[in-house]
């Protein structure tokens, strides 16, 4: 199954928004492939907008971590719009200390644009 994503550029920042509401083993590989494609084009400042996501499991979280590693030290992948439930999984696994987390896409884009 191909993960439905909306991708747009805002200056040097690429915003990747999930249109799926579940980020799990079913879509994890697709997500990594898409991030790999974006990074392969040289775009390393990525906002992952998770505002539509209501369920993430460790497969989904692992895919996001893998994607963060893909952007390397010359970029960043940050999270925008995490709801309370999704945020709870980041906190449970301490991944909220790995990723910069923003309430909105705009805040995330502004932060990466000025980095």
């Amino acid at each position: 199954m191909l993960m439905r994503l909306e991708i747009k550029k805002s200056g040097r920042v690429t915003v990747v928004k999930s249109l799926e509401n579940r980020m799990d083993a079913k879509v994890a590989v697709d997500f990594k492939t898409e991030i790999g494609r974006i990074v392969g084009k040289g775009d390393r400042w990525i906002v992952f907008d998770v505002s539509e996501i209501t369920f993430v499991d460790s497969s989904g979280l692992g895919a996001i971590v893998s994607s963060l590693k893909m952007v390397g030290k010359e970029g960043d992948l940050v999270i925008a719009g995490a709801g309370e439930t999704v945020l709870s999984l980041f906190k449970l696994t301490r991944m909220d200390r790995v990723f910069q987390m923003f309430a909105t896409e705009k805040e995330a884009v502004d932060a990466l644009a000025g980095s």
Partner: protein
Amino acid sequence: MNGKIKLIIDSDLSDVFLIGLSVNRICLEIPVSEIDAYQIEVCVVEAVNNTIKHAYGSEKGHEVEVLIDMDVESITFHICDTGKKMETGKKPTLEFDPEDRENCPEGGMGLFIMHQVMDEVKYSSSQGRNVLALTKHF
């Protein structure tokens, strides 16, 4: 509220979400928060995913059973398979340095999450049938 239900899916990761949705909906009927209901759903999904990947080696065509047993003070999920037994050992940890991105874990978090969220996590295996029991008290 008391009750039992058995859910069965094929060992196909594409169908696991159906278990998750069912668990989440059932959890809305017990006195736990929305976040707890979500985290319980995650635990059961993690257990089913592990069964498919490890007990059945990601091979389709095998049954994964989830028995849900609810009473007035707890809910228990028995995730059952007839595949390869899980190696059990010490309680899992998730230790990593958040500042060290390159070494952040990309997998192996499922059992840790289950132990953090559920009040009891028990594994048993007998006569070719493996059962992971997850219990939450409320």
